[in-house]
């Protein structure tokens, strides 16, 4: 099981702070494609963090990881 955290407008669009995705192993890109289809969200501008570190599209996510969908940030 992969734990997916949603923030800002994504949290509102998806309607949840947290999702669980049933996979043993997949790439960041694969996960984004899956979420894009399922929730009709735009994922082009999203950066993904895996276990609190920014990840690349080809990086692997494994069951037990915590993934965060990070829209362009606007703090400060």
């Amino acid at each position: 099981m992969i734990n997916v955290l949603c923030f800002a407008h994504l949290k509102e669009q998806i309607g949840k702070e947290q999702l669980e995705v049933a996979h043993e192993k997949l790439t960041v890109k694969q996960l984004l494609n899956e979420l894009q289809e399922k929730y009709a969200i735009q994922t082009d501008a999203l950066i993904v963090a895996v276990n609190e570190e920014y990840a690349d599209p080809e990086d692997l996510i494994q069951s037990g990881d915590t993934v965060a969908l990070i829209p362009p940030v606007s703090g400060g």
Partner: protein
Amino acid sequence: MLERLFIVTDQPISVEEVTKKVVRPEAGAVSSFIGTVREYTRGRRTLSLTYEAYRSMAEKQLEKIGEEISRQWPDAKTAITHRTGHLAISEIAVVIAVSTPHRKDAFWASEYAIERIKQIVPIWKKEHWEDGEQWIGNQLETEVYPEGKPKGVESHD
């Protein structure tokens, strides 16, 4: 670490407290940057803001900014506190304090810190206007997602 230098909090921020963390005998200069909620942005009146953070990661990223500063300015000491939640106009959103032996470095380092916060720290701002509200889409504050959706790819690092 007795004192936490990099904090994301839903409580009001004290400029004094953040500044005090970096004052030390070997530093003669502290540059503090205080980000407050501005009423007008691009001609549009903001009533209030909401900041949301991925808190645990945001604190890690702030710490990373502190490390980047220490690499560029080895004598610098940095403390950053960022607020989350609902903020009224003129409330403090972020305080950055950097102390250095010499003042030029303090200015450069704290300016560096605020630029980096807007690039790599997972915190988001929602602007509330008289006629609506919107999550703000990038750190340069030049682009609003027209329908609450991000456009274009950001380079993080």
